[in-house]
């Protein structure tokens, strides 16, 4: 019996799966438009961000863990890469407010479970899986010390 997904991630998954394949792309596009701008303290420090090479277009992510053990994920990707922006936005919204333990418990194959594989191809979904993997690794590194 696997752990239930955090509420936001479950909601995103349900929202995608309730749609026809073609409309799932439209929802992903909406996510891509919702990817927040980087906070000012990061916008001039691209060096802090880690590039996820498995994504087709360059995407950079950076994870913070605050004093209450809450994870904050920041990501940036070019406007010409809406799919990648959409993936990052899903994770930023889905993981918002979760604790370290909750994020680490998110199944690694969550991206394959969104019903998007058919719409964007398995190859592209791998980019999102890699993003989630990078986020978790950064959290482990930050909390190991």
């Amino acid at each position, binding site marked *: 019996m696997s752990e239930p997904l955090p509420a936001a991630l479950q909601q995103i998954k349900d929202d995608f799966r309730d749609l026809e394949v073609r409309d799932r792309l439209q929802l992903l596009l909406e996510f891509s438009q919702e990817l927040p701008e980087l906070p000012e303290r990061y916008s001039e420090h691209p060096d802090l961000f880690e590039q996820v090479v498995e994504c087709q277009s360059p995407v950079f992510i950076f994870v913070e863990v605050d004093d209450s053990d809450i994870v904050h994920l920041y990501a940036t990707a070019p406007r010409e890469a809406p799919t990648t922006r959409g993936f990052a936005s899903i994770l930023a919204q889905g993981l918002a407010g979760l604790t370290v333990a909750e994020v680490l418990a998110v199944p690694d194959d969550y991206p394959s479970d969104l019903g998007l594989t058919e719409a*964007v191809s398995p190859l592209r979904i791998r980019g999102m899986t890699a993003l989630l993997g990078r986020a978790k690794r950064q959290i482990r590194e930050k909390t190991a010390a």
Partner: protein
Amino acid sequence: MTVENDPSPRFAGYAHPERLVSTEWLQAHLGTDGLVVVESDEDVLLYETGHIPGAVKIDWHTDLNDPVERDYINGEQFAALVGSKGITRDTTVVIYGDKSNWWASYALWVFTLFGHTDVRLLDGGRAKWEAEGREYTTDRESAPTVEYPVVERNDAPIRAYQSDVLDHFGSPLIDVRSPEEFSGERTTAAAYPEEGALRAGHIPSAKNVPWAEAAADDGTFRPLDELNAVYRDGAGLTDGDSVIAYCRIGERSSHTWFVLTHLLGFEGVRNYDGSWTEWGSAVRVPIVKGSEPGAVPSRR
């Protein structure tokens, strides 16, 4: 030909100038009977963010590749796909896309596997259309479904299989990947997903001519004299050569295939779409590491 060619003097020197249209030409011909504009991008959502009015979308991965076997779609699938985009056998198809028409060239090459006669590229692709401030729309695709005949794919003239490459040794091979992939430092382009090759390096005797050497900064193809400098003077190709081009999965080499075939006029150029993801994982095929082409291998 159902729609007139672009008479632009910019294309006049190329071997087949009818294969290109300019942004000005396309702007003036939008909505013309018998013309369908197709967008084909690396990013599966880019079309949805805004596209040339009336254009339809064909995705290289979800539309052109068979979902099960590692192969292109068959004649029935192709007929259903392009018929649903309003394309008949006589339609003039103009393809454009992102990344200097990298994926648009791939789509054009697949159209050619099915013998579609009149298929052209928009020189400069999305980048040029955008840079010139031309119109985009986010209207949903609305093409009438039309009848396209079932035509069996004819691979042999323009597609090479692994066995064809083994038989080809002694004739020119062009590896269009980055120098790092060619030398074996890495198996994928920088910032691209690992698609799985067990060995790194290149096919012996291949010359390394990265595909982007054919593209100018604005995404258009370089003028004839510059292309000649790259492929004839640089890579040593001469008229009458039979050439095979390859990359990692056959997409970047479609761009080079277009340049060699339609701009420089080489005949019988083939694209080895199995490319490094096949060769680099195949058993008992010769591989060379390092930046030199290496000798033509003897038969095993």
